[in-house]
């Protein structure tokens, strides 16, 4: 099986009880119509979804892995941003 000479698309599925679309994988397709059909055929075979988004992979702007220290390291020391320092009244229940 050869790799087709067609663009790559990222697939996002909103599941039955999910609130937002989640990235599930990628696929090859010649255009947006065929990408949606292929996403349906590849990623919703077991009743996973109620809505599909397909996005051209080259439309996604990604952070540079080399920047990870600058981007993400500074938050590690700011544990006070986690909500673990607050007392939650019993009446609130599960959060």
């Amino acid at each position, binding site marked *: *099986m*050869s*790799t*087709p000479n*067609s663009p790559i698309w990222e697939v996002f599925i909103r599941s039955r009880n999910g609130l937002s679309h989640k990235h599930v994988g990628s*696929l*090859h*397709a*010649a255009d947006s*119509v*065929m990408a949606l*059909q*292929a996403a*349906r*055929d*590849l990623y919703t*075979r077991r009743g996973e979804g109620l809505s599909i988004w397909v996005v051209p992979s080259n439309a996604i702007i990604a952070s540079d892995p080399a920047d990870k220290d600058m981007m993400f390291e500074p938050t590690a020391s700011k544990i006070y941003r986690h909500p673990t320092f607050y007392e939650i009244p019993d009446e609130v229940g599960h959060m």
Partner: protein
Amino acid sequence: MTSISPSNAPLVQFLLRRADDALILGHRLSEWVGHAPMLEEEMALGNMGLDLIGQARSLYQYAGEVEGAGHSEDDFAYLRRESAYRNVLLVEQPNGDFAETMIRQFFYAAFADPYWRAMKASSDPTIAAIAAKSEKEMTYHLRHSAEWVVRLGDSTAEARRRIEAAISRFWPFTGELFSSDELDASVIATGAAIDPDTIRAEWLATVQSVFVRAKLTVPTSTWMHRGGRSGQHSEHFGHLLSELQYMQRAVPGAVW
């Protein structure tokens, strides 16, 4: 291993005709598994094949219930002789290349989608329920195959040459979809089924609109192959059955 001879009761035979169309086309699509031109289409062909085999199962089960002779869906699918299968010749034709498979699927789905939609009004509640499930599946088969017809037709010279050859090959097999005989007429008279000829105009309109998008020409020839509905199959069918029936013939009664 013995073969079964299903009842000649009209409703049983009617159900077997529709079930055989679905089973044989589903089997043809399953032959693509492992050979499709791209992974995405491998899954699409397999999914469509499974839809059709599922439709066949429902129809065989109901045929067995109506017949009342204790025949299971597997008995109908695997233990009949070649001449006892009543599918149209279109669905048993070998896959050929991808364009040929897509045109065959398009011609069948453009019929089956409106056919099952109309059959939801069947006076027989089981048939109406099978029709409701089948319609949704065939709507997708029609959409998917039509998009491929457009992309192959309005594309490179090589793709266009192949899709045009595929149209010439399968066009003479489309007439049988709309045919019916006295057996069908007796089922149609009860309100359990519709006359397939009433689907012809919608089928042709679908073919014309997709071919316009694909910059393809609808053939004008009216000579059509016939025979599948009375059990006279093309030479390819015996080879298909030898593959389809192999496991039940080799290991009788094998189950999952």
